[in-house]
C-alpha cells in the first residue's frame, strides 16, 4: 500500500508564515537551509535549537539570528546532551511552577553530518536510550563542509573531497561507503525517524507534522545539496536534490516505532544523471570514464531497492 500524506496534500496547504528569515551568512543555494525553512513551518517558533558545530553555527552570529526561535550553540560532540539539559530543565521548572506551561518549547538538535555520523554519536546514542523527547535535525551535505569539504562518514563512495581526492592510490576518490546512520538510529528503537528532501516539500511537511504525535527521540535526515562542496552552480540545488531521490540514492522513508515505510517510489533514473551534475564526481567521467566506479554506485542503488521490494512483498 502506497504511503499517502494525510495533512499536506497540496502545496498551498504549507503555511505561508516564515520562521527562517533571509540574510543568513550561509552559502547561496544551501539545500540544508531550504529543509530547515520548510521544517520550521511546521515546528513553529516555540522552539529552542540546540546547535552542534557545523555550517549552521554561522546562522546565529552576534548580534543577528535569522530565526524567531531560541538558540543554544553547544559543541560539535554533545548537542544531544545540551538538548537533554534544556528539556530536563524545562520539565523541572514547569513541574515546580517556576515556568508557565504555555512557555514550553520543542527542543530541536541542529547538526551536520560530521557531528551526527561521527563525533556526537555517543551523545546521540545516550539521548535516544534515555528516550529524550526531542527532534534531531541533521542537514546532511555528505562532508565536513564548514571546514572546507573534507571526508566525513556520510561522504558517498566515489565522491571527491579535499581529504579523499581522486588519486593514483584511490582513483574513485572516496573509497568507503556512506555510513548508514538511519539504521544505527533504528537499532536504538526511537518512535519516529524519517529522511526528507526539500524538493519533496509535501513529504517533508507531512513527516514533521506526524512526528509531533510521537514523544521521544525523532530523527530527520535532511538531504542538503551543497553547491560549495559538491561543486555545482547554486541555481542547480533543486535539480541535484530532486535527482538524488529520483536516481534512488536518497530514499525517502519513515520509520514508526522501527517499521520502515518508503514514502516515495523513485523513477530510478541512471545514477549518471545525478553524478554528472556535480564537480565532486567529475573524475568519474574525465579524463576517462571510470565505468567500474559508476557501475558500483549503480549496483548499490539497485541492491537497495531490490531489498526494499523484497521486504514489501514479504510484508
Amino acid at each position, binding site marked *: 500500500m502506497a504511503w499517502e500524506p494525510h495533512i499536506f496534500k497540496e502545496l498551498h496547504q504549507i503555511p505561508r508564515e516564515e520562521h527562517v528569515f533571509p540574510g543568513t551568512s550561509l552559502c547561496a543555494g544551501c539545500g540544508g537551509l531550504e529543509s530547515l525553512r520548510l521544517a520550521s513551518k511546521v515546528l513553529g*517558533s*516555540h522552539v*529552542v535549537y*540546540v*546547535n552542534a558545530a557545523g555550517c549552521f*553555527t*554561522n546562522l*546565529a*552570529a*552576534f*548580534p543577528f*539570528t535569522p*530565526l*524567531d*526561535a*531560541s*538558540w*543554544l*550553540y*553547544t*559543541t560539535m*560532540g*554533545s*548537542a*544531544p*546532551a*545540551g*538538548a*537533554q*539539559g*534544556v528539556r*530536563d*530543565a*524545562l*520539565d*523541572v*521548572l514547569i513541574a*515546580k511552577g*517556576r*515556568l508557565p506551561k*504555555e*512557555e*514550553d*518549547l520543542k527542543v530541536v538538535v541542529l547538526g551536520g553530518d560530521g557531528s551526527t555520523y561521527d563525533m556526537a554519536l*555517543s*551523545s546521540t*546514542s*545516550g539521548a535516544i*536510550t*534515555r528516550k529524550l523527547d526531542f527532534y534531531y535535525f541533521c542537514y546532511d551535505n555528505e562532508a565536513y563542509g564548514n571546514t572546507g569539504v573534507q571526508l566525513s562518514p556520510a561522504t558517498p563512495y566515489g565522491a571527491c573531497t579535499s581529504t579523499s581526492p581522486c588519486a593514483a592510490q584511490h582513483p574513485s576518490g572516496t573509497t568507503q561507503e556512506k555510513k548508514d546512520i538511519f539504521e544505527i538510529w533504528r537499532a536504538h528503537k526511537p518512535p519516529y525517524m524519517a529522511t526528507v528532501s526539500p524538493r519533496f516539500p509535501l513529504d517533508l511537511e507531512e513527516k514533521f507534522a506526524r512526528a509531533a504525535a510521537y514523544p521521544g527521540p525523532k530523527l530527520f535526515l535532511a538531504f542538503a545539496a551543497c553547491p560549495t562542496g559538491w561543486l555545482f552552480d547554486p541555481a542547480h540545488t533543486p535539480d541535484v536534490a530532486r535527482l538524488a531521490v529520483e536516481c534512488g540514492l536518497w530514499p525517502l522513508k519513515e520509520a514508526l516505532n522501527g517499521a520502515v515505510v518508503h514514502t516515495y517510489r523513485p523513477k530510478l533514473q541512471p545514477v549518471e544523471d545525478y553524478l554528472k551534475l556535480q564537480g565532486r564526481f567529475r573524475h568519474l567521467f574525465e579524463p576517462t570514464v571510470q565505468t567500474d566506479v559508476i557501475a558500483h554506485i549503480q549496483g548499490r542503488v539497485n541492491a537497495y531497492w531490490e531489498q526494499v521490494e523484497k521486504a514489501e512483498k514479504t510484508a
Partner: protein
Amino acid sequence: MTADMMTGNFAAAWGARLADVDYVPAFPITPQTEIVEALSAWCGNGTLNARFVTLDSEHSMMTAAGAAAATGARVFTATSSQGLLHAFEVLYTIAGWRVPLVLVNVSRALASPITLEPDHNDVLAARDSGFLQIHAETCQEVVDSILMAYRIAEDPRVCLPVMVNLDGFYLSFTREPVVLPDPAMVQAFLPPFRPTHLGFKASAPHALGTAVFGGATYSYFRHQMHLASMNALRVHEEAAVEFERLCGRRYDVVEGYRLDDAEDVLIMTNAFASKGKGAVDVARAEGKRVGLLRLRMIRPWPADAIRQALQGRRAVAVLDQNLSPGQGGILFQEVAACLYHEALRPRALCSFIGGLGGKNISEGEFRAIFEQTAEAGIRGQGIGPVLLYTESEHREMEQLQYLAHDLKTGK
C-alpha cells in the same frame, strides 16, 4: 549543633542537597562516584526534589549541566581527573554562557600512568576556563564551600560557574565530623535561583553561545569574564561575612596558620595542608618561626591577599602537588608573579613538588622543606623545583624497576 561523621564525598552531596538544586547530571568516576550515588538515592526517594540523569560521558554531562543552567535550573554536578579533562572544551563553553552552576572536582592524578590517587594537575588544568575555583581542606569546608559557591556564582556581578575541589581518597573517603548547616539558615544565606538573564521560553526567544566574527567582539566577551571573575573576590568576602554571621564559621580566600611572627612561610592547598599545619606545629615546638598559608581560592587569584600575607617574610616555599613538565610547579609561578611588584618581597622563593599521585609527604620531608627554605632565605636565593622523594621510596622504585626488567627479559 551536633556533628555527623561523614566523608568528603558525602559532605559534597549534602552541599548540593542543602542548596536545594533542581538538576543533577551525572557520570561515575573514581573517586567521585559516591557523591552521585548519594544524590541518586535522595532524588529517587524524594528527599531532594531534583531530577537526576546519568549521561553517556563527562563531556555530555557538562553540556547537559550547562544547558540546564542556561534554561534557569540550579544545577550541581561532580567529576574527577580524566572526567574533568574529557569535559574540558565544555568547561570553557559553558563558562562563556555565564551559567552559575557548581561542579565538584575530586582531585585525582592524570594518566599516564593511569592511577586513582590525588594530585592537582586535573583541577589546575582547568584554571583558565572561566570557572572560579575554591579548594577545600576539610569535609566541613566542602559542604560550606558549596553553599558559598552557589551564592557567589549566582551573584549578578559574577554569573560564572564555580568548581569546588577536594582531594580524592585523603578527603573523599575520610570521615570527619561535619556540622550540617540548618536548612532555614541556608535559605537565608542562599536566595532561590531566579535568574533574569537566563532561560528559554516561548514568549521571549533568545540566542546563547552565538558565533562572533572578529577579534574585537571576542575580546570584549572574554574580558567581561575576567572582570566578572575579579568581582568574585569582593562577592566572596560578602558571602564569607554573611556565612559567618549565620553559621559561625569563617572562610577567606586564603587562610593563614601561625603566620603572625613567621619568618618563613609554606604555601599549600587542599587536604594536605592539614599535614602542613601539623608540620608547622612540630617546627614551632623546635623553635622555628614558620607558618603556613593555605590558598583556598585559586580563581580568581587572590593576589592582594597573598602579597599581604607574604610581604616582609624571609623566605617562602610553595609546595605544588602538581607538575607542569618543562616548567615546574604551577602555583609557584603564580605566587612568584604576584610578588614581583611587592617592595618588601621575601628574600627567597622556593619551589617544592610533592604528593604527586597521592604520594605521602612525611614529617621528614616537611622538615627538609623548612630547613632548605630557611637556608635559601639566609642565602637570599631561592631553590627548586625540588621533588620530594624519600630514600626508602627510591629504593622501592628501584626494586620495581628490577622486577619489571626481569619479567621483560626472563632473566
